[in-house]
């Protein structure tokens, strides 16, 4: 488990903390979504999770190891994969398999074992057969999945994804979301940072940050219950969810949660 305990961080020279007393856990096989407007501290919290930054106040523990412990840093990072918004900028290798191999190579894994991990990781993100492909010949979504494969090859227990779909088209975005769901299903703990609620409506838990503080901690269903409150936290609910709210306000009886178009019409106009 990754445990953030009252974690806080102040950038050198900043007057206010970027993250201020946040407590949350990333658990194996669960998807934690982290939402918030630009500048709410999401990316800083992400970096606290794999010792790219260490907390100024509070603690961050990864499987019991304190990220402040300098001897544990590499062990921590090998357990916590990290991918960023711009897929282009995190690819080190000149062809796909060399990039995926980069992590295990750094960990000193034996060559034949690296080969197995590389092929497995590419397969897991739907890029089997792309071993020799050059990064600039890949689409944005493929590059981002390559980055995920690069993290997977280190056999991490957790993956922190910082706005992984922000620069992708709908197809690439759907592919990346599918890959992240796949990881959850095989037991990886995923922390997905985004400003699109649509991306994480199936999260196991959502926290919303505002000015570095937790302003919401609960399930997606609990978040979408109150559009006004969500908006005050900088979260615009998807139009179809607002439509369901409006219909309920007009006295239409709808199924719970956020019903699909088919269910809405069925409720409005039963044939």
């Amino acid at each position, binding site marked *: 488990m990754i445990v953030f305990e009252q974690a806080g961080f102040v950038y050198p020279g900043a007057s206010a903390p970027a993250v201020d007393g946040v407590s949350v856990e990333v658990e194996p096989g669960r998807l934690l979504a982290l939402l918030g*407007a*630009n*500048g709410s501290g999401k990316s800083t919290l992400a970096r606290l999770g794999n010792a790219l930054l260490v907390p100024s106040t509070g603690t961050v523990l990864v499987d019991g190891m304190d990220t402040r412990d300098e001897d544990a840093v590499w062990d921590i990072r090998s357990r916590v994969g990290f991918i960023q918004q711009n897929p282009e900028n995190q690819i080190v290798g000149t062809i796909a398999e060399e990039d995926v191999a980069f992590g295990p190579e750094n960990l000193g894994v034996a060559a034949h074992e690296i080969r197995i991990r590389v092929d497995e990781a590419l397969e897991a993100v739907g890029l089997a057969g792309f071993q020799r492909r050059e990064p*600039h*010949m*890949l*689409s*944005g979504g493929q590059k981002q999945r390559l980055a995920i494969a690069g993290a997977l090859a280190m056999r991490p227990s957790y993956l922190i994804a910082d706005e992984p779909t*922000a*620069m992708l*088209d*709908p*197809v*690439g975005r759907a592919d990346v979301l599918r890959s992240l769901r796949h990881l959850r299903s095989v037991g990886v703990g995923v922390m997905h940072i985004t*400003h699109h609620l649509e991306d994480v409506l199936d999260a196991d838990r959502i926290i919303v940050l505002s000015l570095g503080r937790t302003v919401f901690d609960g399930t997606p269903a609990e978040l979408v219950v109150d559009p006004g409150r969500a908006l005050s936290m*900088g979260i*615009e609910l*998807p*139009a*179809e969810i*607002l*439509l369901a*709210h*409006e*219909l309920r*306000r*007009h006295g*239409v009886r709808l199924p719970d949660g956020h019903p*699909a*178009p*088919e269910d*809405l*019409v069925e409720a*409005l*106009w039963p*044939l």
Partner: protein
Amino acid sequence: MALVADNVSYAYEEGRPFGVDAVRGVGLTLEVGDLLVVAGTTGSGKSTLLRLLAGLLEPSTGSVVVDGVSPGHRDARGAVAIVFQDPETQFFAETLRIDVAFGPRNLGHADAESAADRALSEVGLDPSVYGSRSPFSLSGGEARRGAIAGALAMGARYLLLDEPTAGLDAAGRASIRGALEVERQRSGVIVVTHDPGEFLDSASGIIALDEGRVALSGSVGELYADPSVYERAGLELPPIVRTQLLARASGMPLEQVTLDPGRAAAALVAARGMRS
């Protein structure tokens, strides 16, 4: 007076990086007051089409005509402005005003700075506040609007934008849509995007590209009447629109389809009331 593409085609040489794709026999007409949405997935040729319309590429066959002359003609100089994806990554000057004035100055306009200030006001950035700020210090939505002002300042009659709202949060997207509505009063606007959902209420027309060809061309109403071609081109309608189209298909007498949840709900409830 219009920007017209007549049966234009363009093919790149082999070995281009991903996402730069051919255009095959595309035609369109853009007039002042239009907001034309060109929708397509990555690789549909939409960015190439934009470059052809801006005169940055020469069509292999077919022609582009700007108010009766070719894009290279003296009279067409500055008539078409283009805003590429992530335009804020092209800032270079110390102040936003100097950056925005770059275009008009290159065109030899006498008073580039006041053109820049006018453009900044049009996109909702008060020139007395933002003009002297560094373009690198702006927030996402402000930077995007500043970059769009750089195109507006050139005094173009036709404004072409590639994914103008990509990567912005809700507030940033709304500010861009507002700026385009203002701009539309005096010029024709084309928005090229893989996710046209947010423009469906305001678009005067929509063109869907599929592998470089026009799969669909018409009004948004015509799109709603038969969205199958659009979906075959790999594009998706927003769920709120699909709900209303589904309601219509199951026999609800729904006149207007809208992105606005409040109006959509009221119309659906009213339509339901007509049953009994």
